[in-house]
């Protein structure tokens, strides 16, 4: 896969289709690749890396890249293409400045899961014949990719690219039975007190680093209200547990109907807070109340929360705790 991607990058740079390439560059270890922009074939040759640990959704970087001028090639996994479409729908990126190469995805690996298996002192990871060989200073270990697959990939909603200029690998299908709302259903089945306890237990670990917001492709405000010192709610610390909760709840409301469920918020959280569950609750509710809707699937679709119809559900009909 990596070689095919590099070859396309060389060719598209060479023939002038694109001026830059957005991908991933090698890390210090086998699993810590960093998103990077490559400006010529030499940079691609020396730095470009793609493997199962290249998990970052690159769509949001295009907001900045579209302002830099020229045309940029971006490699997008199926789930990333939904974010891309949503950014297009919101006029945050310019389609004609971007060349999208869709890449087939088999699910990303989570190095935390490898470490949780008790594998320590990792010096290298190679993939061959459906097995990862993890080299450590204590010897090699063979593990199955399925055992260390990122949580979000276990509930992958789509192997289909909803937008691309060309594809590398095979095109997949939308995954109908992805079970991504299972945990939401469990939370809904809880009593309000149990649910409150669950979320306090999770959100009390928040350190307000804003990684979830800053990585989120739906969070593209020029200045977030939590960064505005005059707003009274600026971001540097939560004074109390109320603020700790509200930061995440307000953010979830703000991206409701726009969140494509890419899962980046939970992936980057340094405290492993399952933030995606807040967004999934809203997605499930939108599906229930307004009919199935997948943000980013069709950039021309009218968003359910952005239009009004006479037979829209009334707040009282929506249910919820009546206490």
């Amino acid at each position, binding site marked *: 896969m990596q070689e095919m991607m590099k070859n396309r990058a060389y060719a598209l740079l060479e023939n002038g289709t694109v001026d830059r390439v957005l991908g991933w560059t090698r890390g*210090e*270890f086998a699993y810590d690749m960093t998103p990077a922009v490559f400006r010529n074939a030499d940079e691609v040759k020396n730095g470009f890396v793609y493997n199962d640990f290249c998990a*970052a959704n690159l769509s949001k970087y295009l907001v900045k890249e579209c302002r830099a001028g020229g045309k940029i090639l971006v490699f997008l996994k199926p789930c990333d293409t939904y974010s891309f479409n949503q950014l297009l729908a919101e006029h945050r990126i310019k389609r004609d400045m971007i060349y999208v190469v869709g890449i087939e995805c088999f699910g990303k690996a989570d190095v935390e899961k490898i470490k949780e298996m008790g594998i320590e002192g990792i010096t290298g990871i190679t993939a061959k014949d459906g097995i990862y060989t993890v080299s450590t200073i204590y010897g090699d270990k063979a593990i199955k990719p399925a055992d260390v697959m990122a949580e979000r990939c276990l509930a992958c909603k789509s192997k289909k690219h909803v937008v691309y200029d060309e594809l590398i690998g095979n095109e997949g299908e939308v995954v109908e039975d992805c079970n991504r709302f299972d945990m939401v259903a469990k939370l809904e089945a809880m009593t309000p007190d149990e649910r409150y306890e669950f979320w306090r237990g999770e959100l009390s670990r928040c350190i307000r*680093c*804003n*990684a979830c917001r*800053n990585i989120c492709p739906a969070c593209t405000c020029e200045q977030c209200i939590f960064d505005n010192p005059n707003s009274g709610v600026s971001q540097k610390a939560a004074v109390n547990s109320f603020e700790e909760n509200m930061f995440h709840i307000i953010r979830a409301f703000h991206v409701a109907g726009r969140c494509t469920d890419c899962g980046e918020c939970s992936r*980057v959280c*340094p*405290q492993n807070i399952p933030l995606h569950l807040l967004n999934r609750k809203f997605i499930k509710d939108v599906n229930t109340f307004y009919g199935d809707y997948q943000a980013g699937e069709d950039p021309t679709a009218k968003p359910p929360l952005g239009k009004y119809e006479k037979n829209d559900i009334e707040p009282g009909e929506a249910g919820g705790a009546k206490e």
Partner: protein
Amino acid sequence: MKKLSLAKLNDFFAAIAAKQALYLPVNNKVGKADFTKWTAGTEMSKALNTVRSAKDFFFPQTENLMDFKMEGKNIEVIDSREECEDFVVFGVRACDAASFAILDSVYLVDPVDSYYKNRREHGTVVTMACGKPAETCFCGTFGIDAANPAGDVTVWEVADGYMLRANTEKGEALLAATADLLEAGDEKAVEAAQAKTREIMAKLPLAGLTFDGVGVGKTKELFDRPEWKTLSESCLGCGTCTFVCPTCQCYDVRDFDTGNGIKRFRCWDSCMYSDFTLMAHGNSRNSQVERFRQRFMHKLVYYPDRNNGTFGCVGCGRCLARCPISMNIVKVAKTLGGNK
């Protein structure tokens, strides 16, 4: 050298906790270690390190500095400081223990920060030598020995218990207060544990890493390097690196309006944030490349310049493990220092 048998570990914790608050690493609900207050039944985490560093004990994320009460045209200023109670932090690693000296160099020099000093004076630090350092560890780069951490008391895990050595008066007092649970310890067991740790450290990928290409007197050489642009290109401008860092020490002071008064508090700040050191005229660093450069120049050049070459990093590896885009101080130092 004293020895605590494995069977007496809980009695040891109970004896300390009977007199003062005791904090130690405990696994949270997602299986990561946090410093948590000990109560009967609390089990110590086996994790190499906590997600948040031990700096929280002396430099908490938020703290109240003073209160203002307003009545008509009168403003009353209330000193909200209280004398901190004695406490013990158990299980601090060598890296975090070394970070306290860096925080001290900021907060205990004139003008002394009384809030910080209060906590430092009342806290007893019990460090624990690392048994199995990880690939993200590079404390050795800064002359820190994972097998021989500083602190008031140093603890080594051995086959059938723990070896303890008091390093300071506070440490002596702690061991004296728990003397009936301790027996005489053999230095040889410690030496064996140390040799094992050092052998692992030497095999890890970052063993032998030096920061020679950065450091004292390099401001002019490094400030305008073109690599800053590429290094910072995908930085999200979040505060993860700053907030998990044991040596990051910047804070902001804010007022919280309570309705009939003001609580003036300080909270951790991050130079990665767009409103860091925001002044009346605006911001002094308008782009992420400038903010990113500030964070690393501070740790790699400005701090060493003012502190006899000591880097503002202790090699704990938290930023290596936690940065959402996997950019970190090792990559920066290697790129700038040509050490690849």
